[in-house]
């Protein structure tokens, strides 16, 4: 991978490093590679967005306490893996990790898909069933919701690993191609730039996620569950097939049309179920159970 070595120091007149008097900070800034920093920021933003969507979606529908525990645990495992493997991260079979996590998300997403269509077809987007009330009561009792924990854990771990791969790839490329001598760290400053780019992506996308969460609080729970079920199925399909080596047309942009397709199919299925064209209609079932 070849990267332009457009360094901050190149844009400054020589001999200005000592103007601030803070040589340490200045040296770090001066050694950063802007191309690596921006490249890592953009590439990481895609992965961090996927992570934040899953965490915010799960937190909004299943409760935040267990989601935070799951995210925290995922982050700790991620840091431990990075600390243990360092630049040897590429030894991890990311394809297999994608297949396993994608398949699990998809299996769970399909269950929500089914429940969502049947329940919503029966009594709309804002109603609640006994099942849903029991779920809410369970969460309120303070016990860990392991489903939320596992979903958040997997989202943070997989996407975090992908960000770590991006940092390693951009960092190594950034240092190697520049023609500047960095000793062992032929790429040392490249790694610093890549790390800062990835950290900036976490902060920026994380802040957007916090804003989105406020808006999501206005959305009825079942509607949200419906949307999150579609998201889990979308990410699950995408990751599982990507792990197998399938090339999606448009790369990560396929997530958008896949989500639109699943949501469109969900509404079509719901109307079909409501009309009774798909076996007994939920309205009839409800009326029968009330007799």
């Amino acid at each position, binding site marked *: 991978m070849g990267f332009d070595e457009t360094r901050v120091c190149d844009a400054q007149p020589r001999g200005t490093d000592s103007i601030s008097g803070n040589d340490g900070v200045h040296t770090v800034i001066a050694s950063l590679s802007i191309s690596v920093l921006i490249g890592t920021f953009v590439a990481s933003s895609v992965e961090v967005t996927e992570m934040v969507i899953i965490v915010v979606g799960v937190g909004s529908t299943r409760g935040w306490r267990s989601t935070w525990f799951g995210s925290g645990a995922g982050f700790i495992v991620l840091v431990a893996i990075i600390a243990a493997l360092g630049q040897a991260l590429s030894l991890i079979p990311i394809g297999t990790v994608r297949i396993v996590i994608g398949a699990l998300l998809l299996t769970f997403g399909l269950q929500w898909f089914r429940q969502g269509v049947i329940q919503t077809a029966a009594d709309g987007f804002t109603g609640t069933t006994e099942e849903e009330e029991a779920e809410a009561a369970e969460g309120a009792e303070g016990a860990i919701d*392991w489903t939320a924990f596992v979903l958040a854990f997997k989202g943070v771990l997989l996407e975090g690993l992908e960000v770590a791969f991006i940092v390693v790839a951009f960092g190594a490329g950034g240092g190697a191609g520049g023609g500047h001598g960095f000793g062992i760290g032929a790429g040392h400053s490249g790694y610093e730039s890549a790390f800062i780019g990835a950290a900036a992506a976490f902060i920026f996308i994380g802040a957007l996620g916090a804003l989105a969460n406020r808006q999501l609080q206005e959305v009825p729970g079942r509607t949200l569950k419906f949307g999150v079920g579609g998201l889990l199925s979308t990410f699950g399909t995408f990751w599982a097939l990507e792990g197998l080596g399938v090339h999606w047309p448009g790369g990560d942009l396929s997530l958008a049309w896949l989500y639109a397709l699943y949501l469109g199919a969900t509404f079509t299925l719901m109307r079909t179920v409501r009309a009774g064209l798909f076996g007994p209609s939920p309205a009839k079932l409800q009326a029968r159970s009330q007799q």
Partner: protein
Amino acid sequence: MSRIWGWIVGFGRFWYGFIIGDDWLAATGVLVMLGGAYGLLQLDVPAWWFGPVVILATAAWTIRRGLIRRSGHD
């Protein structure tokens, strides 16, 4: 000992509920998707379309099963 056993059973139940849930068809659909896509890749045929097709078919089938099961219970 019984506490550890209880934990193991709870762990197994959690994963059973997570993967199988109340219909095994969803998990089977995912396996069919993975197997079929792998087969298409071996034949050098683009496989990206196969996943959504299998998943939507599985979703429709499992919804129908859910409705029929509910009517049977009532």
